[in-house]
């Protein structure tokens, strides 16, 4: 346990040196929320019919709440360690990790958690400001009883998203252009994970594609639970899907890590 805390502490110290950078990144991350909220208010406004209009089963307040949730989740569980791993592999910096007593994935996970605790802390005031601005639109959870269920879902989303990013990072063992793969991952999460649009608004065939892939459980599932669109057994089904994909990702990780490091040793000498 102590060594885990030590890694966390080092991450914090390291990252605190870059406070200003963190604040700027956060503003960049949060700015789409302002644009999106303003745009949806306008879209529902021109679709007319007072508050009765729904798109993909969501009314205006649910839609704005959806984007607030997704923005917050993006800060909380957004997984971007793939970029760092790709650089580590490309520049050979991953070599020292192979000699350390903890697996590489544990280091990356702890670093990520350390970074997340900081950014989430800094983000809260900005987030509060956004909530105040949108106070007429943001809804509380559909049912207060779902809050603990939500915590479980978000934790699973985080693990799944982290593993996906990690696997994309490992692709750098084989691919020169792994960085572009990281962008493809981001695109898929945005489109099919529900980060850009609620998946229920997508055309049917895209929803069908989304159902077959793990991404929709990252953002769309927790947001759906919060809004009360996903409830009862559907929540359990969602968890089952998440756990199944986590298992698949973990097995893939074991295989890729073994093959990749073996290959890396050959290349790096």
């Amino acid at each position, binding site marked *: 346990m102590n060594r885990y805390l030590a890694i966390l502490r080092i991450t914090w110290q390291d990252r605190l040196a870059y406070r*200003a*950078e963190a604040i*700027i*990144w956060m*503003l*960049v991350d949060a*700015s*789409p929320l*302002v*644009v999106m909220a*303003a*745009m949806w*208010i*306008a*879209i529902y*406004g*021109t*679709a007319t019919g007072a508050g009765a209009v729904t*798109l*993909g089963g969501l009314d205006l307040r649910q839609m704005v709440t959806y984007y607030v949730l997704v923005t917050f989740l993006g800060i909380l569980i957004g997984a971007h360690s793939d970029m760092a791993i790709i650089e580590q592999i490309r520049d050979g910096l991953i070599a020292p990790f192979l000699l350390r007593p903890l697996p590489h994935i544990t280091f990356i996970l702890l670093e990520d958690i350390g970074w997340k605790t900081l950014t989430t802390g800094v983000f809260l005031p900005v987030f509060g400001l956004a909530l105040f601005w949108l106070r007429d639109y943001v809804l509380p959870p559909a049912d207060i009883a779902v809050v603990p269920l939500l915590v479980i879902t978000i934790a699973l989303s985080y693990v799944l998203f982290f593993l996906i990013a990690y696997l994309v990072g490992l692709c750098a063992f084989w691919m*020169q*252009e792994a*960085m*572009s793969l990281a*962008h*493809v991952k981001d*695109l898929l999460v*945005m*489109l099919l994970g529900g980060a*850009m*649009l609620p998946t229920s*608004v*997508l*055309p049917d065939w895209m929803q069908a594609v989304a159902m077959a892939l793990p991404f929709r459980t990252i953002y769309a599932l927790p947001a759906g639970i919060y809004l009360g669109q996903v409830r009862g057994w559907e929540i359990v089904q969602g968890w089952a899907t998440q756990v199944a994909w986590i298992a698949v990702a973990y097995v893939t990780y074991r295989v890729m890590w073994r093959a990749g490091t073996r290959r890396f040793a050959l290349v790096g000498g």
Partner: protein
Amino acid sequence: MRYLRVWLFFIKTAIIRTLEFRADFVAWMIINLLWMVFQLTFFWVVYQHTDAIAGWNADQLRVLLGTGYLLEFAVWTFGYPNLGRISGYVSRGELDLFLLKPLNSQFHVSFKRMSPHNVPSVAPAALLVITGVQALGIQVDLLTAAVYLALVGAGMAIFYSLWFMSVTTVIWLQRCINIQELFLVALPAQKVPPEVYGLLGRFVLTFVVPVAMVTVFPTQAAMGLLSPQMAGVMVATAAVLLWLSSRLWTFALRGYVSASS
């Protein structure tokens, strides 16, 4: 004239550099186009559910988006590769090298590099504008086209000036910081109908921090909705901001303490 020649030389070196990594070039080109397709998907999906966003129908919005992408093309091809490095130049003391060259240092730091893999995205952007205008049934004469292109240029100049000024502050901060990202917060805001922001927000974004002007004025010009006075205001704004950015740069350099030896 001399500056044009130097710039063409910069572009040539950038292209040669890119040709060294051809697979990378293709990969990034595809990613850029995918991002665009993906953002357009958003609007496509929304227009499945509604006829207009803040009074803009799909064809009008197509012109606005195309204009927005033309600006983004300039931002990623010429802006980011240069302005994104200034902070690094300052913290590593490399800015000295720019100051010593017999070339305007602002021009040099702003145009030295480019990323060719963004260039292909200019085609779909232009296509959006052209098909949008056609779908609206607007007859475009040579003058309108010329005014449109001039205003797009003015828009790029406005965006560049504001961005450059925000990055210039790094000379006082004297450390490596991602200051170049800060102004990019404005980027998503300019591809949306300005009516979306309400009256106050629209005023602020048009005249105080004129990022909405950057795409909306040329778009209105293409649709024949912009008065000559407003076109004049935009060009004047661009000129004033460019002048201000060069004043700020020289002023900041006066306080520049080199980080190298």
